[in-house]
């Protein structure tokens, strides 16, 4: 049930002739309440919500998301609280499908089965686990599928074609393409054209699946990726929260404004 919400969101965007807009924010950043307010505010313009599970030692994240994660942990976030935020969000006016994103240790400590149960209960549709690569993730991905949760496989520019084929074969209805070799929030070192060239190769191999592009996407370059099934904006949001705190602005308003801007650039 929940997994199919992701498919529905993509179909709706396709019908509108535009990519899906996915935004990543860390649950609990800057506080539990504010992060929920952020989701409620931005979801009007967002198609799929990615919610980060704050981790103390995020090896694939750049400075902006690291700052968000630490801020959220300081403010008392943990997985129980993260699920509460998602549950509340799903009751709001625009209850977009939610993907949880994070690192394996949190799930391991929470207990895999309990985690999946909580995902279902709170209305989580998909999962991205950054440090649980293929093929080690096969067993867990299968468990997710059985429970109607999309396990989203990641592909990167360094993934060989042969490996790509295997990963695509084992993927569910959504794939995440990492635009370049960098941590999250890295400045684009390659042109959008080159990124799309690789991306299209994946699309050809993964017919019928929804492929999104993430890492390094901002309001400045998002319009270049209109031809994709979906685009993910993450670090930019963390940066906006950080700046809002510094200037004593309201991050909810600032992020709402930014997502409106992002949306306007892809329609």
């Amino acid at each position: 049930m929940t997994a199919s919400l992701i498919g529905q969101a993509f179909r709706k965007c396709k019908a509108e002739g535009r990519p899906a807009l996915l935004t990543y924010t860390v649950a609990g950043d800057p506080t539990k309440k504010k992060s929920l307010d952020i989701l409620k505010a931005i979801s009007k313009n967002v198609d799929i919500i990615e919610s980060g599970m704050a981790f103390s030692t995020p090896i694939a994240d750049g400075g902006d998301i690291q700052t968000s994660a630490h801020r959220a942990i300081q403010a008392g976030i943990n997985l129980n609280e993260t699920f509460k935020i998602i549950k509340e969000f799903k009751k709001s006016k625009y209850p977009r499908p939610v993907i949880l994103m994070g690192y394996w240790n949190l799930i391991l400590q929470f207990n895999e089965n309990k985690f999946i149960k909580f995902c279902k209960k709170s209305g989580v549709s998909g999962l991205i686990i950054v440090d649980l690569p293929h093929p080690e993730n096969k067993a867990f991905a299968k468990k997710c599928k059985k429970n109607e949760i999309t396990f989203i496989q990641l592909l990167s520019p360094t993934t060989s074609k042969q490996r790509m084929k295997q990963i695509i074969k084992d993927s569910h209805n959504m794939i995440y393409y990492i635009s370049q070799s960098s941590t999250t929030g890295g400045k684009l070192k390659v042109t959008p054209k080159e990124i799309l060239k690789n991306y299209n190769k994946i699309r050809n191999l993964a017919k019928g699946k929804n492929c999104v592009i993430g890492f390094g996407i901002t309001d400045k370059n998002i319009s270049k990726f209109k031809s994709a099934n979906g685009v993910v904006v993450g670090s930019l949001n963390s940066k906006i929260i950080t700046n809002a705190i510094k200037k004593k602005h309201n991050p909810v308003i600032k992020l709402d404004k930014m997502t409106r801007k992002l949306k306007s650039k892809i329609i």
Partner: protein
Amino acid sequence: MIKLKKNIPLIDQHDKHGFWGGKFGGSFIPETLRKPIDDLTVKFEKLRKDKKFLAERDYYYNNWVHKGPTPFIKLENLTNHLGGARIYAKVVSAARGGAHKIYGAITAAMLCKKMNKRYLVTDTGAGYNGKMFSIAAKHFGLKCKVFMGHKDYLRQQPNVDAMKKNGAEVVPVYTGSQTLVDAVSEVMRYWVSNHEKVHLGVGSTVSANIFVKICGWSTAQISRELKKQMIDEFGKIPKKVKLLNCVGGGSSAYGLWSEFMDYDKRQISFEGIEAGGPKNSKKHAAPLSNNSKIGVLHGAAQMVCQDKFGQISETESISAGLDYPGVSPLHCFLKEAGRANYVSQTDEDALSAYKLIRKLENKINPSLEPSHAFARAIAIAPKLSKNTIIIVNSCGDALKDKHIIKKRLGKY
């Protein structure tokens, strides 16, 4: 119960997914690093069978690190003072640069060249790994960048100076506890973004499977030397030997023990000494002796200091080199297989041990990391008979700790 196999180096006793004992280690890495890690794995596995590569390594390990093996000496005065077991030291700190990290650094530099890369990056806690990488990089004509937690950057100044003098760029890391754990995270991030040009050498037997293997393969030199030295000294391998080694990530302990894995533990026992932190402090860096839960840190499953939600704990120790919340999957395996025993000693224990050794022995000047192991030796030796041989790996020189020692003990 997991079991140690005989006649196979422990570094090779993992399954096809890289796990020791089916659960420790593995490669929990972002997709972007899969290919660089696969490439490195293929290259390393090929080169370790290549006679020319091995000959070059042996030249460096046997001559350049130290003219012949690093010394193996009896601590006569300490033994007499304590009574009981006979205490020896394997003085690995006599190695070029002053610690065992030189072995891993040489391997990394050689691999870097073979991978046609010009940049060598690494992490450092005590600063020794960074220093050795800077020495090796300079010798092999490579550029070098070292990530170091800011707290360590300040407290291990002599090694920072040495790295800079050798032309390395030292990058202080300001995130988290600003110690080794943050330096390792940051070097992994740097590698994600720069793997095309840069070769990563991890400073201990931690991180993804291949890094554990490369590091252990390198430090194993210590026990190859020691085995011969023991036969020279005693005529044979004695009947009762205890090999004591401090354990942070666990590279020097693996190095001291690797050749002796197959011996019955009643003949040769292993004891790893972790950092218990300041007396009365709840923070420690001793996941094995405190039975921390298994978790995933820096690409490997291991016992790790963490809270109930899986957030990695901040640690505290006077020894920057031991101040790490996780520990090598190899040591997790050895603990669970019952082959090695792990205990912890406090900052104060290490300082007292250092003081006593400096008072009684003039041939060694152990840094605060091996001082933890000496503290254990001092505690147990009087209860043991003189037929027992205790060998402590004095794996680092105290020069880097001169400011801390002066502050805590009044003089260096």
